[in-house]
């Protein structure tokens, strides 16, 4: 696996990204960050599937989408959204980004599982069905409040997940497939939890088999299997012991001890059954990280980012870059990559040389932008004087004062770049850690130490001040003749930062082996 993120099958196509459950939602964040760095697909259509709409992962994903859109809109209004923030993020139908398989019963007074399946009405001729239900699901599962998610019990999720086929947005999603021939569908979820494990097979099959909408004579055909891929998470985290045996509602809690068992039980299905996916990227970690708390859904389930989720985002882009899995047979193609040693570094990323260079350049740009243009989260008030006379301004016809005139776009870009940096810092602080940046503190980190070296730096120049980074911007600005104003600034920042990454941090040279 060595993804080419510059291929036209990525940059010009649409990715329909289905984030299933909490882990799937957390994989969306790095995918959006890749889009912000100009390394995403042409268009990204996001569907989050989670019954627990207050889940911190879902909330965070929504906030990240909103922040991304705000930045992109502000840049696009000035014609500057074709470098960073190039990807247009779309809603499947009418701003519906999150779908809950239990949302149809939200009017019901009780959110308990037995109430949601209307157990009380299973009498008379339906009594055997009721008894079967009671046999299959223990009391503490029947009593579970589903608003807190499926809590590692996929058998509950399966009961509701098939409703996907009746959803308007899903119908629309399949319709898009026939008008967007180059689009790809990619689902991400865990096989050791509840929502992801129950949604993955249903989503894959529904996409490929198509649906027959109610009241419509004709079926909506499914998507060609070669265009549908998935990343499945094996247990990559564990949970600490809970304070209480049961959840607040008396139902079950997710149990880390069952994660491996759940995964082992689920995997054979992906190997032998027609689950719809032509490609499956199996992701895990030999040293699962223990989360800080054992929360049962909701805002408290605020797990820290993990590099495995980043690999899931890269898997989606790799799937696009390869144009799907055209040669797939009846069974999915499984993709593997491995990390050398304990901690992840730049060299462990499954990217080709050009894409790795762009990513390192992108992260360098985020650092430089935050260091040079903002202070304490706000665009610097003294930006005019700080940039006065700077060489890279001339070729793009930008006066130092004009940079501040683009304040809104700059501020929103800074807001989003802060998210990227915080995410990188969280990865860095994890155990095992993803060592892409040296320190979380932008202000106190010299330019020359912003990124972890990929190898011995080829250039020994000292880079202390952020203006030292501008040296590389100056050179790229001089070469660039076709961009002016804010679009020029964004392009200079991209190219100049890539040059800095190449010269100082050991990023591969342009045109390096792919």
């Amino acid at each position, binding site marked *: 696996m060595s993804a080419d993120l510059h291929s036209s099958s990525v940059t010009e196509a649409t990715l329909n990204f289905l984030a299933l459950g909490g882990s799937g939602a957390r994989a969306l964040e790095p995918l959006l960050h890749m889009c912000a760095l100009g390394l995403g697909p042409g268009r990204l259509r996001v569907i989050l599937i989670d019954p627990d709409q207050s889940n911190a992962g879902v909330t965070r994903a929504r906030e990240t989408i909103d922040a991304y859109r705000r930045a992109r809109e502000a840049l696009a209004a000035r014609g500057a959204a074709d470098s960073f923030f190039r990807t247009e993020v779309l809603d499947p139908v009418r701003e519906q980004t999150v779908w809950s398989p239990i949302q149809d019963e939200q009017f019901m007074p009780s959110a308990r599982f037995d109430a949601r399946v209307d157990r009380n009405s299973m009498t008379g001729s339906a009594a055997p069905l009721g008894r079967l239900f009671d046999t299959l699901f223990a009391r503490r599962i029947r009593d579970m409040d589903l608003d807190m998610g499926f809590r590692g019990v996929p058998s509950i999720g399966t009961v509701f997940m098939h409703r996907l086929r009746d959803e308007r947005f899903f119908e629309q999603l399949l319709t898009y497939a026939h008008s967007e021939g180059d689009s790809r569908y990619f689902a991400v979820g865990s096989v050791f939890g509840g929502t992801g494990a129950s949604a993955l097979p249903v989503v894959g099959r529904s996409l490929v088999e198509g649906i027959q909408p109610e009241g419509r004579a004709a079926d909506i055909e499914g998507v060609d299997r070669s265009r549908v891929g998935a990343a499945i998470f094996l247990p990559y985290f564990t949970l600490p012991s809970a304070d209480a045996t049961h959840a607040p509602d008396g139902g079950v809690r997710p149990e880390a001890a069952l994660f491996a068992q759940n995964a082992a039980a689920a995997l054979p299905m992906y190997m032998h059954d027609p689950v719809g996916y032509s490609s499956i990227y199996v992701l895990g970690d030999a040293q699962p990280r223990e989360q800080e708390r054992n929360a049962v859904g909701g805002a408290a389930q605020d797990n820290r980012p993990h590099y495995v989720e980043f690999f899931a985002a890269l898997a989606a882009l790799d799937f696009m870059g390869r144009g799907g899995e055209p040669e797939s047979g009846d069974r999915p193609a499984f993709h593997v990559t491995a990390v050398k040693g304990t901690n992840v570094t730049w060299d462990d990323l499954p990217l080709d040389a050009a894409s790795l260079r762009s990513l390192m350049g992108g992260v360098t740009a985020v650092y430089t932008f935050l260091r040079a243009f903002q202070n304490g989260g706000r665009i610097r008030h003294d930006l005019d004087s*700080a940039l006065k*006379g700077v060489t890279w301004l001339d070729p793009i016809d930008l006066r130092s004062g004009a940079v501040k005139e683009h304040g809104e776009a700059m501020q929103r870009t800074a807001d989003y770049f802060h998210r990227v940096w915080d995410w990188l810092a969280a990865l860095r602080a994890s155990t095992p850690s993803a060592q892409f940046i040296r320190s979380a503190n932008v202000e106190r980190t010299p330019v020359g130490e912003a990124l972890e070296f990929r190898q011995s730096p080829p250039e020994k120049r000292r880079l202390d001040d952020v203006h030292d980074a501008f040296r590389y911007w*100056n050179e790229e600005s001089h070469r660039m003749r076709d961009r002016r104003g804010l679009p020029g600034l964004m392009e200079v920042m991209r190219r100049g930062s890539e040059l800095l990454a190449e010269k100082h941090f050991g990023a591969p040279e342009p045109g390096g082996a792919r």
Partner: protein
Amino acid sequence: MLDWLLHLWAAPPDPLEFSPCPPAPPGGQADPIGNFDPETVSAAFTTAGVASAVAVLLVVLLCYLATSKTLSPGFVKRWWLFGGLASLLAAIVPAAVLRLWPTRAAAESCTTLPTAFPLDLPWDIIIERAVAGLIWGAFAYVILSLLLTKTLGRFPAAGGLFHNRGCPHPRFRPS
């Protein structure tokens, strides 16, 4: 005109007199005033002027080229610091040249010693030229900086002149 450009108000007077001539043999009377050989004086001043210009040019090049910095408050401070150095050198260098240059008295200007005997330039002339150099150096530093950044500074191959071409124009204040 060239003299004014090189030395401002401190161009060498022609003729440059000195007083008194070497003492006469006992019983004789020394000439009250003699003249310097104008050729040696002119050569001393020209050398002093050229040496000042070279010194200032070197300081300018050192300021812009011997740094990996690109325009920043740090570089602007550096530019001012080097400006001071250029000014100082433009005072010291001509003073040293004028003091050490082998100037002579004009032949036949002293009847007591009609040969062109060696004679140092007087300190008041040297100090006046040094003070003029102080001002001249500052001006030359600014003009050379502008000239080089606006011409060579347009090309990346010019290194620091390219990366710092915004100093001194439009930016001459550190912050």
